[in-house]
């Protein structure tokens, strides 16, 4: 779909021009994770045990940071109604915007997560599983998050409400993301967990755009 590529391209161009969103998300991720070695002390056993959970919780929170402006900026300057009037189904627009959001914030998170895993002393067996789980989990975070972003697009200080709405929906990603890495570390089969993550990702692709588009229609009224 060419029109989708046009929207993804514009959002990436905007993200590159502003630059701050990607850097902010990454900085938040890095700082949150590096707090744990300081807070938990240098005992390597403790850190390694906590590593999968710490990485995922930090990723979840970081994914929220750039979410509140996902639709708000376009709603405020009239772009969103113009995009809606282009005749493109809003569901596809949502898919394009979530894809751009993931490329500019989710993918960088995946890229730095092995480095942060190193600082947490994650056992060597866990790295591949961590990257695979993050690759499946973070797009789901962008998609699920888009529902909250659309619901709070009209609110001036929607950020906190957005977190409250979206974090409970992130729980399955957190639970299975951590389980995937833990399974790899304890040399159990990783495949079933990855398949569940894949199912979650497919479910998010199939359902989130409809919910988000419905919320956007309300916001546009």
């Amino acid at each position: 779909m060419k029109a989708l590529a046009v929207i993804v391209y514009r959002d990436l161009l905007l993200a590159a021009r502003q630059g701050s969103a990607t850097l902010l998300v990454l900085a938040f991720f890095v700082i949150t994770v590096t707090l744990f070695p300081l807070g938990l002390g240098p005992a390597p056993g403790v850190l390694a045990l906590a590593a999968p959970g710490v990485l995922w919780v930090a990723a979840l929170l970081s994914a929220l940071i750039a979410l509140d402006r996902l639709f708000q900026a376009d709603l405020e300057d009239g772009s969103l109604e113009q995009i809606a009037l282009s005749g493109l189904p809003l569901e596809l627009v949502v898919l394009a915007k979530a894809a751009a959001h993931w490329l500019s914030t989710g993918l960088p998170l995946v890229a730095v997560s092995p480095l942060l895993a190193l600082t947490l002393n994650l056992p060597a067996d866990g790295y591949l599983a961590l990257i695979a789980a993050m690759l499946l989990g973070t797009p789901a975070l962008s998609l699920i998050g888009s529902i909250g972003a659309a619901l709070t697009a009209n609110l001036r200080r929607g950020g906190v409400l957005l977190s409250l709405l979206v974090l409970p929906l992130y729980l399955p990603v957190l639970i299975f993301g951590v389980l995937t890495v833990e399974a790899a570390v304890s040399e159990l089969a990783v495949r079933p967990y990855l398949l569940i993550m894949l199912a979650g990702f497919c479910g998010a692709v199939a359902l989130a755009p409809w919910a988000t588009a419905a919320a956007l229609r309300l916001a546009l009224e």
Partner: protein
Amino acid sequence: MTLQAEALACVRGERAVFAGLEFSLGAGHALVLKGPNGAGKSSLLRLLATLLTPAAGRITWDGVDIRDDLERHRRRLAYVGHQDALKANLTVAENLRFWSRLATGRAVVSPALDVFGISALADVPTRLLSAGQRRRAALARLEVATAELWLLDEPDASLDDQGLEQLSAVIDRQLRRGGRVVVATHHEIGDASTTVLRLGDAANA
């Protein structure tokens, strides 16, 4: 081929803005909306753009209710509202190229920039533009998309005399090629092919 409103009513919040509104608009004709603030000029334009839903009555294109095929109606219209829909960190050309690609798949924007005399600003980020220059960039969107129906909500806001002339010329050209224009304005626009619709008289009575 006519655009027609039948017993159209609009309610915003709890307030009835207008009711029983009727008009029809043929190819090559313009409808100018006049009336005091709050008379429903913007609301009527948003109804025609399908951004609002009528409280009663319907709007038809060739006898078919526009809400029966939203996507088709949306593809034949171009709407310029109060907001300029420009991204502050993109240049004028980048902004227009985006709307052009979205509407037609092509990205030829320099003729549209010429029409409104903003070619020299093509590579300037829109955050550095004046209000009038931004408005010209927003209006240039009309020229990159080839829409049959133009819906213009006070397009002349913050335009200078030269800008007004360019706008009139563009509207005349749209009418000559058989397009339709509905425009809310406090200025005089158009010629003999223009019908004036006064809003707000009934509401005040």
